[in-house]
């Protein structure tokens, strides 16, 4: 692997869940010749995580963010597509590859109150991954890591138990636990959303510094655009299992293209009583991930809806500089791409390869 290869690559990754679990229902489906109903939690998703990069994924609850994270982690087998870690596909992994993968890819959970073992001291919590991976360590290594995540003096924290720590301190311990195995990638699932504002700021600042200091890459998942923008280099906007827009953070915020991205940005309250904000005009709730509309999934809420939205939009680059992709019919000329336009994506129509 050369130095400039991406650490992690997702190529048209799908994760679908079957909705039927009962015997009777599956027999019924056989008799009536229907396929099982699928929840398309993650559908045909591409993402490239470069070294030292922070990719943000934002979207409303139920858009598939957490499923995406779990699929990347290997907790779910992808239903389709390929996940490549350092150039190697995870489908080819054997047991020792998986163990190595789990050392190099670490996770920080949303809820620090439940993700630490209450019976483990801070020392044991941080030492556990090292013991699992047979890495030799000394007490000073753990103290050094505690200092790096801002738990100083380390000697005071090392013997404490989670119930003696505040929410922010717990999340720092969780971050230290993730960093101790010298990982390549950190997966962060809304790590600051359960914390108070004053603590949230310190965790965001910490994550910001750490990616620079430790040279790790990160996928950062959140529903809150205003915190994502502090941490991420690039932002992926996810809607019902698909990435609808992806661009560099500032570019996405200052010049959003997709109507959904626009609505998300317009919905963020601004902490300034002098600022007059124009409110988003779209309907409030995402559709049902089981019976999704054909074509563009956002069309039922979209203020710009056109006839062509019944076809699945292509991922296009409206600026032509390779720095943004947006999946929306507004941004390309349908005549020049006529051959590529997808047919309405019915259950039985195979998708035209593009």
């Amino acid at each position, binding site marked *: 692997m050369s130095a400039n290869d991406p650490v992690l690559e997702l190529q048209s990754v799908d994760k679908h869940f079957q909705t039927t679990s009962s015997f009777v229902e599956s027999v019924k489906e056989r008799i009536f010749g229907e396929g099982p109903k699928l929840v398309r939690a993650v559908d045909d998703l591409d993402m490239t995580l470069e070294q030292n990069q922070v990719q943000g994924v934002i979207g409303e609850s139920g858009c598939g963010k957490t499923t995406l994270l779990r699929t990347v982690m290997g907790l779910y087998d992808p239903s389709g597509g390929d996940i490549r870690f350092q150039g190697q596909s995870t489908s080819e992994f054997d047991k020792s590859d998986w163990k190595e993968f789990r050392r190099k890819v670490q996770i920080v959970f949303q809820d620090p109150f439940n993700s630490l073992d209450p019976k483990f001291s801070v020392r044991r919590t941080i030492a556990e991954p090292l013991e699992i991976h047979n890495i030799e360590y000394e007490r000073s290594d753990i103290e050094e890591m505690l200092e790096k995540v801002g738990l100083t003096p380390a000697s005071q924290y090392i013997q404490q138990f989670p119930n003696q720590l505040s929410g922010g301190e717990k999340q720092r311990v969780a971050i230290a636990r993730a960093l101790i195995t010298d990982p390549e990638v950190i997966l962060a699932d809304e790590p600051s959303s359960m914390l108070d*504002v004053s603590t949230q700021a310190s965790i965001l600042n910490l994550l910001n510094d750490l990616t620079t200091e430790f040279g790790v890459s990160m996928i950062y998942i959140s529903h809150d655009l205003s915190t994502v923008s502090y941490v991420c280099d690039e932002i992926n906007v996810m809607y019902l299992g698909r990435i609808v827009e992806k661009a560099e953070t500032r570019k996405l915020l200052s010049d959003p293209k997709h109507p959904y991205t626009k609505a*998300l940005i317009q919905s963020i*309250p601004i902490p300034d009583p002098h600022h007059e904000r124009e409110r988003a005009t779209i309907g*409030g709730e995402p559709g049902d991930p089981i019976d999704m509309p054909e074509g563009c999934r956002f069309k039922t809420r979209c203020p710009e809806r056109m006839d062509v939205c019944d076809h699945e939009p292509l991922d296009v680059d409206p600026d032509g500089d390779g720095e943004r992709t947006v999946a929306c019919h507004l941004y390309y000329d349908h005549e020049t791409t006529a051959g590529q336009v997808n047919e309405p994506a019915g259950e039985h129509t195979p998708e035209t390869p593009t």
Partner: protein
Amino acid sequence: MTDPILEFENVDIRYRTEKGNDVYAVNDASFSIDRHDYFGLVGESGCGKSTIADAIVGGLDSNGEVTSGTIRYKGEEIQDYSESEFNENVRWKEISVIPQSSMNSLDPVMKLSNQAVEMAKYHTDLTKTEAVDRLRELFEVVGLSESRIHDYPHQFSGGMQQRAIIAFALYLQPSLIIADEPTTALDVIMQDQIIDYINGLKDEWDISMLMITHDISVVFENCDSMAVMHGGQVAETGSVVDVYDRPRHPYAILLQNAFPDVRFPDRELAVIDGHPPQLRDEVDFCTFADRCPWAQPECREGAPDAQPVAGDDDHQAWCVRADEMEELAADHLEPNADEESILEGQE
């Protein structure tokens, strides 16, 4: 100036515990809400904001008690009301509550229309049909389809339940609504819509609102005046514009800079070190002193008194150094003077 609808004057609220380690949840809290005003109460978890909401409607846990001070609603002292006095004179009719976990506050085994009938039975002399008709009108106000009034709560999504709750809160035409974190469980777009509805009520319904939240940006956008709380004490009160432009309590200053602002993604967020005290003893000191970069020995020697902020009406800071703050915190007060919002230029 109009008469305030709700006044807190030097209110102490204490929770008794069996071992005698009482929790001094709210200490010497004073603020007032004017008629027709939207008032925001901001602070982090455990600062006593929900305790204040509970005290107003007599809903404190059985070990909680207003130990001193007065709570006046429309000029009348209500802190010593009995349960039945609260039921007859205050709850729903005068003050209604949009609770924190509103998704759990509808009766899951009762149709929404029946819940309205029940409320009407206890508080009004409307007949069943009138009660249901009234709910139907309110569903229209909050943007729900009136054909769904006979549904059960589980048939509604989170945002719809929240609207139904707002409809119930308006049911008896109260003068004051207490909204305790009304939108925390909702997604951004839905949150924005609900807040927008709540805002719209002001003109049509002639109500006042006490909005309790940890999200200072919601208060800045939607309220007229506000109070910032820390560790059981009110730190600063004033109109939102005054508190934003001239914060004079260190916590209010730092809190504003700790809050992410999507317009300025490059700004370093302020960090407030430490955490608030446990409030297990009588609070005769400033609870922010241990976290405050400008604390002096004096701050730990007595609870601070309110200092009026010169030049502003009804703007007070409970800090002994409030007069000096402009100089001391100069770096924090103008953090983004030369920054440009990246959202500018968007249509």
